[in-house]
Each structure stands twice: as C-alpha cells, then as structure tokens.
C-alpha cells in the first residue's frame, strides 16, 4: 500500500557536524511533504515543507531535498546542536478538503556533545 518510510531508525551525529535524514515514499502522486520534529513528551512540530513542484527548500539551518524520480526526501540540518536531538518524521499531507497527514516511522537523531 501507499507508505512513507524511513531508511534508518537512529542517527548519531557529533555536535557541529551536519545531519542528513533520509526518507522514501511510495505514492508517486504525493504532492506535499513535511518534516516534523518530535521531542520527548511533546507532539510533532512542523519544521519545513516542500511541494512536489520543487526540488529544494531551505529554512533556518534546515534544507529539504526532494527527488521525485526515485521518490526520496532528505532533511539536512546544518551545524547540528544538542537541541536538535529528537525523533524526525517525514510525512505526506493530502490536499484539498482532506488534509490527513501520513507519517513515516521516524528517525531518532542523537547529538553527541
């Protein structure tokens, strides 16, 4: 069935290094993708989004890349900080009147001080 999934369950990164979190999706009709960050005891928090008509989008210290040919998403975090430690989810959101979000399984990012 349609799914949004992640390659790695855990990623350990040295503080100050760049982090790359990858995600694969299976629905070629997917139009809108989101990365969420979830810290312990909190709900998912929006980080950055990208529409299917874009290849790249940048935010503050974060960049999302979309490769529609291989149905792959990545989240890059520059100069990773201890506060970036969390679980990261890629997700797909339906459009129009149906706005449900379909989440991947999540990648836990551990920042080593």
């Amino acid at each position, binding site marked *: 069935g349609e799914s949004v999934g992640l390659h790695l369950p855990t990623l350990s990164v040295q503080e100050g290094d760049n982090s790359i979190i990858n995600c694969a999706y299976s629905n070629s009709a997917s139009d809108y993708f989101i990365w969420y960050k979830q810290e312990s005891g909190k709900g998912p928090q929006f980080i950055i989004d990208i*529409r299917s008509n874009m290849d790249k989008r940048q935010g503050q210290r974060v960049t999302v890349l979309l490769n529609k040919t291989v149905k792959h998403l990545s989240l890059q975090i520059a100069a990773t900080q201890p506060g970036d430690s969390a679980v990261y989810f890629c997700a797909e959101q339906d459009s129009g009147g149906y706005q*449900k*979000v379909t989440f991947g399984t999540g990648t836990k990012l551990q920042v080593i001080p």
Partner: protein
Amino acid sequence: EAGVTQFPSHSVIEKGQTVTLRCDPISGHDNLYWYRRVMGKEIKFLLHFVKESKQDESGMPNNRFLAERTGGTYSTLKVQPAELEDSGVYFCASSLGVEGFYEQYFGPGTRLTVT
C-alpha cells in the same frame, strides 16, 4: 497564543473500561484531527473534523471509538470498551484552513495505557 491542549496527559485504565480524551484546538481553527501512535508503529490518522462535522473518519479502527466535536470547539475521543491494543499515544492537531495546505499544530498527546 495558547497551543493545542490535551487532557489528560496520561491515563491508565483496565481492559473493558471506558476512557474519554479531550482536545482543545487553537482558537479559531476550524479543522481538528486525531492521530495515534501505538507501540512500535508510526503515527496514524484517525479522523478529521471541520467545525462540528466529520470530514474524514477513514482511520477510526472500529466502533469502540467515538469522536465528537459539539459546537465546533473542543473534541472528545471516547474508547469504550478499551482493549489492550488501544494502548498508545493519542495526538490531536488543529489547522486554520482546508483548501490548499495548512500547517497542523499538534498537542502534546495523551498517553493511554490499558492493562
């Protein structure tokens, strides 16, 4: 501005009992969503309200789950009777619009443990 709030933060009940979870969306948000994450699985959509109407309830697992949003403000999710497999974290989210893409703001979740 207050975010999405959920009550209780944690609930422990026995199998066969009833539990009611509450969600208060961000003021002015017509859209309200329920999601849940059961152990070891990804976060899954349950249903979507637009004001007081159910727009999409395709994710509701069975008829033991009943969601309401009377008056189009806060929402409740009742599980009756609760089963062991209902244990997990239940998230509520709200968003402003429907057409196009609108960010969904998530609450902290209610952790439900059924013993």
